[in-house]
């Protein structure tokens, strides 16, 4: 079972009121130095069987016609796999949020 992640973000030229609201709140909460915030969606798809080129192409099509509205949104599709995890670990360990 593999996980494919589709990230969907509003196009840069489209106003993102949610991201803006977050950004505006940050200084009030004591966080400085964040010049922009954009808020989008992240889909985690659990795929049965191996994720080969065909499957990925299908998922890309699905993202283009369904998961994203390309009038206003861009998307990226990627397999979440070991390679990525390692890359992340190298740059900075992942912080897992856990409820108190």
């Amino acid at each position, binding site marked *: 079972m593999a996980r494919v992640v589709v990230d969907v973000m*509003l196009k840069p*030229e*489209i*106003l993102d*009121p*949610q991201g803006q*609201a977050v950004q505006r709140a940050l200084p009030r909460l004591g966080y400085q130095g964040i010049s922009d915030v954009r808020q989008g969606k992240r889909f985690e798809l659990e795929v049965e069987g191996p994720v080969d080129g065909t499957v990925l192409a299908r998922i890309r099509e699905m993202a283009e016609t*369904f*998961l994203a*509205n390309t*009038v*206003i949104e861009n998307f990226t599709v990627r397999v979440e796999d070991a390679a990525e995890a390692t890359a992340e670990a190298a740059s900075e360990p992942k912080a897992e949020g856990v409820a108190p």
Partner: protein
Amino acid sequence: MTTRIGVVTFPGSLDDRDAQRAVRLAGGEAVPLWHRDTNLHQVDAVILPGGFSYGDYLRCGAIARFSPVMETVIEQAKAGMPVLGICNGFQVLCESHLLPGALTRNDHLHFICRDQKLRVENAATAWTSDYTEGQEITVPLKNGEGGYVADERTLDELEAEGRVVFRYLDLNPNGSRRDIAGVTNAAGNVVGLMPHPEHAVEALTGPTTDGLGFFTSVLKKLVTA
């Protein structure tokens, strides 16, 4: 024979009964259509009502757009059948690409319910012929994702072709570009708007009866057609 106007019910449609009532009050016959229907039961026009089809999960109208009934509606709309999308119905029409643009989260991030003043900018569509251009009407507005957006070129095109049908007056309730409350396709048979004319058809339950004109407009058009 009375004119038959279909009102589609998707799972999560909420204002379908209200749209049916509005059709009846205007003198038409309201025909309930089910999202799984593949034929339109000989209706002469279709209304996609307000609500939260499929919970409005993913994006408003995104899942409803792929329902069986929409295949036929899209086909018929392209062939000239009058189609009105109210609120969620407008979102479905945009998702279906029958109308340009998209509806995004209200800029203030809240759901809003208010009596909204509008200006009728185009009184030549299938759904607005009983109004006059420049007429001001007040109907309820209620949505969380009603901000109309499209790229500048599309917006300019809409303006140039007179396809902006309604504009918000006094106050833009959701950050819509150029105060746009409703638009039409090039042929003028497909109209979508965020405010709810079907909630302004009786003095007792609405702020005005300004919404009736939508339904009488299309009935007249269909009778003379």
